């Protein structure tokens, strides 16, 4: 479903080159639920934005659903984003001027879907996340958990092959985080491929597979000293040492 081989992402200025991703390799099979973990600045989110075709990469290869995407133009990338990928963001990213119904409608509009079909899909998605009764509410009138559910409904409405979630529970309290996580698990059980970036080891543990990223590379935890150093650092911070 998602395969990156020797992928790199370099930010260049006149004086310095910064590798956000270096020799990055990952292969996510269809129907998998993969958690991508790693310390801040490790390149998790860069990976996710490249995976979601929101950003280009510098080198290597990226196949999404069998298509090599590096040479696609803006229109083609936008079409793939619209038809194959659903995004769930930490900050929900709902459009404040649009009500719940209209927010969920956005990706369907870009697909050129007819009004009746749009309405059917929107209401089905909202029912699935338990917010059909809030269709006319505006984001500001909803709790954080409800907003994230709307964002999930928006991601699901287009029936994407791949769901990309960036810290989906990062802005939620424990109870709401649990409920959102349960929803993602349910969606995965129904066959969706999910790639979730998270800091939270507890959430990561609920995924089928964990991929660890350190310094822009996927690492094997057992062998990588940087991971052990990171664990020690986290432990120190946790115990106040």
């Amino acid at each position: 479903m998602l395969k990156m081989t020797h992928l790199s992402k370099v930010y260049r200025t006149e004086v310095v080159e910064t590798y956000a991703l270096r020799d990055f390799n990952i292969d996510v099979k269809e129907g998998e639920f993969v958690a991508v973990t790693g310390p801040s600045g490790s390149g998790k989110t860069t990976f996710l934005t490249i995976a979601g075709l929101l950003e280009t990469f510098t080198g290597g290869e990226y196949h999404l659903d069998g298509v090599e995407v590096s040479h696609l133009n803006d229109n083609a990338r936008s079409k793939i984003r619209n038809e194959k990928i659903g995004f769930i963001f930490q900050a929900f990213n709902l459009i404040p001027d649009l009500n719940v119904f209209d927010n969920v409608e956005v990706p369907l509009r870009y697909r050129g879907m007819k009004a009746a079909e749009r309405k059917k899909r929107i209401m089905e998605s909202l029912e699935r996340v338990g917010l059909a009764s809030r269709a006319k509410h505006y984001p500001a009138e909803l709790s954080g958990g409800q907003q994230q559910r709307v964002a999930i409904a928006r991601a699901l409405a287009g029936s994407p092959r791949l769901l990309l979630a960036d810290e989906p529970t990062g802005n939620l309290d424990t109870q709401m985080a649990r409920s959102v996580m349960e929803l993602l698990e349910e969606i995965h059980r129904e066959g969706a491929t999910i790639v979730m970036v998270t800091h939270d080891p507890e959430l990561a543990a609920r995924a089928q597979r964990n991929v660890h990223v350190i310094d822009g590379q996927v690492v094997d935890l057992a062998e990588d000293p940087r991971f052990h150093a990171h664990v020690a650092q986290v432990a120190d911070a946790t115990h106040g040492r």
Partner: protein
Amino acid sequence: MFAYYFQLGLRSLRRNPILTALMVMAIGFGVAASMTTYAVFRATSNNPIPEKSSQLFAVQIDNWGPEDTKNGEPSSSLSYTDVIGLMAAHKARRQTAMYPVGPSVIPADAHLLPFNVNSYAVYGDAFPMFDIPFLYGSGWGAAEDDGHAAVVVIARAINDKLFNGANSVGREINIDGRNYRITGVMDSWNPQPLFFDPVNTSGFDDPVDLFIPFTRAIELKMGTAGNNNCNKNSGDGWDAWLHSECIWAQYWVEASSKADADAYLRSLQGYAAEQQRAGRFRWPPNVRLRNVQEWLEFQKVVPPESKISLLVALAFLLICLVNTVGLLLAKFMRRAAEIGVRRALGASRREIYGQFLIEAGTVGLAGGLLGLLLTGLGVVGVSWVFDPKVARLATLDASLVALTLLVAVLATVMAAFYPTWRAAQVQPAWQLKSN
């Protein structure tokens, strides 16, 4: 998607109402100033007889010589001697001399007082030449010209006043104590600018009330009600003046093709050469033949203040649009997060262009509606700046309404190109990361 983007545009008008109001006002005032001054410019630079403007020619003959002419340009009017000479030569398909006269009409109804009429003495060819429309009857023919006939063509307004709008052809009308037979009643005819006599009217005046035969007017010694210019003393009495080199008549010819016009110009040069040989002109032939548009331009019929005010208003519109660029930029860039989300959900750059340009178009439409209201007020108030005879020609008709809205929308959409380009450059990844 147009309907969706238009709907988003309408919704965005309500967002940031102060910013929206500033933009709508900037566009509204800018467009209104431009359209008001354009209404005046359009009226003054109008082609008054578009179907024939390239076939009608004003004639100029230099009968004063280089000492009394400016920049070698022959005078705009002709002397009686030249009028008679050209009419006798009859070289054009149609031709007429004309001059304004100011007779009084004495109504048969004793309850009505005599009144002055805005009149011209012309030859019968003038009616088909100038495409003068008739409600009843027609103009007169060559026989009436030759016979100095007491005939007349009156305007509809005069017919309404004297005959209650009935068909008055064949009836008589008393002008300056003499009876004239009415041959025709003109339908509404008021070409603006008054191309046939900008010399005496500056191009803008009331419609003509009455036409009488040129030959009849001369026989009755009707002096001109317009300009009479002499380069030397014309002597005493009517006949001395008539046969002097004083200039006071306009002369028009009709030529249906370029070849005919060229042929007429050659005959005009031939006439002037003949006058030189006869010793009347002591200079080489100096003649001009200008069609209607060239004639109006030569006579500088479009008031200079009309051009200047239009340029100033367009500059004002430009300033308003520059402000609008800034305001739109602020408005669009405040929505970088929304743009990032839309891009993530599948909007291509082209779709972002579409959304924001249409949104700008709705702002322009709102500005256009305000501009329309202000243009209406401007057209009413234009007489404070321009000559009332010019100002009254400026009207808010359907074409100006359409143009006002079109200019507002197009100008705003053009002003939105840069802000929209900036909006489309928003990097969704960065935007979403920063959120």
